[in-house]
């Protein structure tokens, strides 16, 4: 049907994610990557469509043709989570975050959300955010608010969260090749449980 490149951070391992995508998008040649460097390389291979966050699409000169929505919105809230007291954006000195856009791009993205004062520690997987708090490398970690429950479930630390005022776009799809239109149709009909893993309730 076409080649789909997926660059998203989800709460399961890459192996399980790739398998869920394969089952949810039969006939689609899906490649899931989790690192910014791997995404840049895979993008050179001219996929037919790219599924990632709108901020990543924009950084690569791509526009969404299909957007994910949840609770009627194409944006979602992010939260700062710390051990002990709830961290405050604008005051937090160091923040752990997923590396979406490489060093400079991710620094800009995180500082827009939590303030320019923050030193940013990047990690490549959601599960790597917790060690940053466990070994006290950062004051807080930044992640989509919907994933805070996963963080809590994995730890016995006393975690406190604060949702941020600014929002971030939910996953979206860019049509980048001749097979793209068919892929957009397939993603629009993706099983609910797979879409939910991406934070999406419906595709428009």
């Amino acid at each position, binding site marked *: 049907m076409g080649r789909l490149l997926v660059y998203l951070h989800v709460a399961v391992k890459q192996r399980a994610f790739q398998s869920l995508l394969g089952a949810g998008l039969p006939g689609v040649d899906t490649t899931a990557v989790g*690192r910014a460097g791997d995404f840049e390389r895979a993008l050179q291979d001219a996929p037919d469509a790219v599924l990632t966050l709108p901020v990543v699409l924009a950084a690569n000169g791509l526009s969404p043709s299909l957007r994910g929505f949840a609770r009627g919105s194409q944006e979602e809230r992010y939260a700062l989570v710390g051990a002990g007291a709830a961290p405050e954006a604008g005051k937090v000195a160091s923040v752990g975050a997923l590396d979406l856009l490489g060093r400079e791009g991710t620094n800009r993205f995180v500082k827009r959300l939590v303030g320019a004062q923050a030193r940013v*520690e990047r*990690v490549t997987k959601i599960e790597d955010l917790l*060690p940053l708090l*466990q070994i006290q490398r950062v004051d807080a970690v930044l992640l989509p608010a919907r994933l805070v429950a996963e963080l809590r479930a994995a*730890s016995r630390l006393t975690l406190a969260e604060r949702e941020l005022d600014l929002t971030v776009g939910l996953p979206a799809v860019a049509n980048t090749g001749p097979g793209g239109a068919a892929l957009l149709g397939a993603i629009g009909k993706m099983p609910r449980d797979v879409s939910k893993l991406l934070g999406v309730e419906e595709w428009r």
Partner: protein
Amino acid sequence: MALTRRSFIAGVPALAGAALGCSSGQEERAGAGRDAVLFSTHSSKPGSKSILVCMPETRQTSEVWRGLSDELSRELELIALRIGGEDASATIARGIERYRPAGLVLMNNPTVDGYRRVQASAQQTAFPPSVIVMSSFLEGKPAHLRAATGISYEVPLITVVTNLRKLIATPIDRIGVVHRSSLSGFVRRQAALAHREQTAVVREEVSPKPNASEIKRALRRLKQRCDAIWVLNDDRLLTPRLLADGWLHGLNEPPWVPTIVGAASLVSPSQSFGTFAVLPDHTALGTQAANLVLDIADNDWQLPSATAQLPLSTTTTVDLTQAKERFLLRPSALAQVDKVLER
């Protein structure tokens, strides 16, 4: 399934070698000239500085290189030198002479030892800052090198336990560990860190050169009191003889407790030793090392801190055959593991 002693010993050299991969290095002769260059990258940034990466040629070091070069190659020139065999220090010395690097990255114990000899032979010389990775039991400030920092190779116990709790449904509160006295400081520091996640560590100290009976006795005592056994990557405790006659006997008898190891090769459905391996993610380790290099660059090529960091990212492997036979798994367990091995 327990192996016979003979079949286990036959399989053990590869297994033990992999377990101690951080200290072995590849035994190959390498010149110190252009033929020692494994990889190089060229930055488009004018006047960019050079980083000399000294590494043996293995799958793991190549993964570290990938993480490093993805992060650094736009801003810095990277030259990877192949290090191996007897002439590590000569290769490194000639590399420094030829490339005049602003910093070094040193991968594995023999490489670090080679660089230590380079520094020892030039006591009055100022050396560029260096970042050490894949070196066993690196903690605090590297005492044997000047201007060095690094990242520990051992996955912190707190991370190991967090991963195990995602897999096993029964409570994991007390972790048993067999260790020699020389590693008691390391174990105590790991225990203090793990305490933050409400994990208690029960220690069984063995002699500096233990025999198989000592290992078996220590394991039997721990298994009565602990919810899991954590096996350190200590080459003195993981000799083929001790693995076959001590560890395997001690672990493959009731009461069953999950065994966590630090080498993928110690998890095998046909050998029933480790239930679960938690290893550093080598590509992420390269990224972490790159960030240290960038911090040093931002600090005008002076070390901002010499204290070694802990590795942040891990990969996990489970022996599903053993885990299903002996333990209660969480429903979502397999979605939280990188590699599943099953007979």
